[in-house]
């Protein structure tokens, strides 16, 4: 199964980093969509099938917590796999996110950390990258 992924972060650099990291993991990827905040992400979810959302917390217009609440309160979307990727360190906020059925990856993260959470959240497995040709050039550990 190829995962259609939605990356939600107000930083274009972080969106690009997350997409690049996803491609390094060897996970089967389908369409990749991007949104700069929660409201834009909801619009994309209205028009496209998405299997997994990677979501920041601190964003303008609609932050990550409100986005998760809106998704979980919408019958057609409530089962969406969500992983929060954030600098957030408060156990109070992280626990609240986890109670809403989302997983958490703390920035800074390694490709393995992201891959493991995606696998645990979606049940997909990955093809072991073989180095060149996988986008892994210059990176460690995978």
């Amino acid at each position, binding site marked *: 199964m190829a995962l259609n992924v939605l990356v939600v972060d*107000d*930083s*274009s*650099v*972080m969106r*690009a*980093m997350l997409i*690049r990291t996803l491609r390094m993991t060897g996970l089967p990827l389908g369409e990749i969509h991007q949104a700069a905040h929660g409201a834009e992400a909801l619009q994309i979810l209205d028009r496209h099938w998405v299997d997994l959302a990677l979501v920041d917390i*601190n964003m*303008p217009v609609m932050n990550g917590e409100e986005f998760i609440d809106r998704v979980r309160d919408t019958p057609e979307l409530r089962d969406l796999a969500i992983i929060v990727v*954030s*600098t*957030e*360190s*408060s*156990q*109070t*906020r992280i626990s609240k996110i986890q109670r809403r059925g989302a997983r958490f990856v703390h*920035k*800074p*993260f*390694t490709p393995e950390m992201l891959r493991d959470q995606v696998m645990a959240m979606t049940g997909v497995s990955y093809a072991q990258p073989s180095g060149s040709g996988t*986008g892994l050039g*210059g*990176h*460690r550990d995978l």
Partner: protein
Amino acid sequence: MRNPLAAELASAAIATFEQLAFLPAEVLEDPDEPDGQVTASCRVRFRGPASGALEMEVAGDFLGELAANMLGLEGEPGETERRDALGEITNVICGNVLPHLGGPTAVFDLSPPEVFPHPLPPCARPDGRLAYLALAVGGGRAAIRLRVYG
């Protein structure tokens, strides 16, 4: 490093540069401020159990390498990519050092990074410097300050 908060700041900064940008970083024992050589700067303000800002000033030309590594670019990154990369790095360091200020359950709100192509404009509250750190990063240098007001 005798200041425990400076040690946590160093740990957060080094991990962030290495994991997000694949740039080795090490603490400089000579912690002079990089006056007159600053090529870019960034400030992230925070509010919560304590209010303040994390500030970073960089000297030398490593922002190109920083942005290229973060984005996986083959060519030379543009000015926007460099600024965004500096902002994101500062934001992540700030988020990682705050638990050491307010405890593991404290909730802080961070403002979007303010990035400048020159030294930081004077802070309205120049007092309250809790920790200072100078790092050698790539071919340049970063000075990082944690300020807390009140």
